[in-house]
């Protein structure tokens, strides 16, 4: 293990300066990807660490001009417990509530989850269906990218050297909307999605007026399924319509085989996850209080 340098800036500006000054420096927030990766021998700890877990003002969860503003340092525990998130951005609460174990959720952050850019990350698909934007800041200033534009591939983001994620802005779903995120898991805790799906369904006058579906762990990054979305629009959200939409996700699903599942198994299961996510989203849109996390309510492990 490297002896390394540990830096703990007191402000965001200082953090950005340290990042710029130290070539190859890595941010550490909760460390549940960065430090755990080194324990598992996947990599060594970077020579210089810039610890941001105590930076003030970056862990907020608040409504701003009708949108949800979440700081990069908000933990999954805080997101899962936020009444604001549970009420209007329910799919995100479904996702944060199933990350790791209670100990993981207490230290692991939203910013770390997004920056780690795993195709199996839990918060990605919900943020995609809500059309979230990610704020990146460097010494030169800040910019905003749609969350889908943040990921360049497995483990890679489009953030420039010296840039960090400061927060996420999530537009409010239209009235009459419901959302859900579910995953296939082998174990209730300390688990990562085999595959997963998020859905946002808006219902007006008995029919689906808008729908978004995003898929986890079936492509190099989180992807939307335009075919599934198209199959729902204008239809009544009946079991048949939902099953037909779920069967359409294969347009976007190009899974790989790995230790957690074969490509064929992932293809079969992504349809099931999409069906469950759309079903729960439609039920929530109709006012039904389906408990969070939806994964445990609709057929997950216990």
């Amino acid at each position, binding site marked *: 293990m490297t002896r390394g340098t540990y830096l*703990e800036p007191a402000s965001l500006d200082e953090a950005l300066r340290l990042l710029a000054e130290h070539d190859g420096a890595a941010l550490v927030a909760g460390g549940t990807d960065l430090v755990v990766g080194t324990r598992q021998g996947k990599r060594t700890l970077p020579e210089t660490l810039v610890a941001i877990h105590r930076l003030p003002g970056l862990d907020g969860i608040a409504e701003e001009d009708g949108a949800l503003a979440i700081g990069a340092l908000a933990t999954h525990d805080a997101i899962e417990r936020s009444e604001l998130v549970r009420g209007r951005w329910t799919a995100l609460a479904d996702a944060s509530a199933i990350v790791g*174990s209670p100990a993981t959720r207490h230290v692991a952050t939203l910013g770390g989850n997004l920056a780690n850019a795993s195709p199996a990350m839990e918060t990605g698909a919900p943020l995609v269906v809500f059309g979230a934007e990610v704020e990146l800041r460097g010494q030169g200033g800040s910019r905003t990218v749609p969350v889908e534009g943040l990921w360049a591939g497995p483990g890679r983001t489009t953030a420039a050297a010296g840039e960090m994620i400061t927060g996420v802005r999530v537009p409010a779903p239209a009235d009459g909307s419901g959302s859900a995120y579910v995953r296939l898991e082998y174990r209730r805790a300390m688990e990562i999605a085999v595959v997963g799906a998020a859905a946002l369904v808006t219902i007006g006058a008995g029919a689906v007026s808008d729908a978004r579906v995003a898929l986890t762990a079936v492509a190099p990054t989180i992807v939307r399924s335009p075919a599934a979305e198209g199959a729902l629009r204008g239809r009544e959200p009946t079991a048949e319509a939902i099953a037909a939409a779920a069967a359409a996700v294969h347009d976007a699903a190009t899974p790989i085989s790995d230790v957690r599942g074969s490509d064929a198994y992932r293809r079969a299961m992504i349809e099931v996850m999409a069906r469950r996510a759309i079903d729960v989203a439609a039920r929530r849109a109709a006012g039904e209080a389906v408990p969070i996390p939806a994964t445990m309510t609709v057929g997950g492990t216990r």
Partner: protein
Amino acid sequence: MSHACTLQVNGISYPLELDAGRTLLTVLRGELGLTGAKEGCDDSECGACMVLVDGRPVNSCSYLALQADGREITTVEGLAKGGELHPLQAAFLDEGGVQCGFCTPGMLISAEALLRRNPNPSEDEVRLALGGNLCRCTGYQKIARAVLAAAPGANA
């Protein structure tokens, strides 16, 4: 390069000089001689290394010691007070929730974190709170029963 820091463990301040990559678990067990927290997997799978940092459960095997600088750390050694077992410890003994004992410190810490937040949990809530702790001996039934028995709200 070593870095000065102060770990506040079970109410005692320990000034230390630590390398950047040191995990909290190795410091607790090595420098401080607090061997209650165990190393099971050393990569966040088993929960044997669980400690509280500012009252929240943390897998200390995978947490940088320097990130805990100045924060309040509780290990299993900090649960008993004045020679009296903590109610959770007594309940684990009464209910037979301890066999080899390797997982017990982590189980107690996760249970303590739960009960501080929720003094009257359901069995489901207990099982979820202990989801990150593996036990290879007891089969979990007796552990869950012990936590329920120790809950301050249990007899209310």
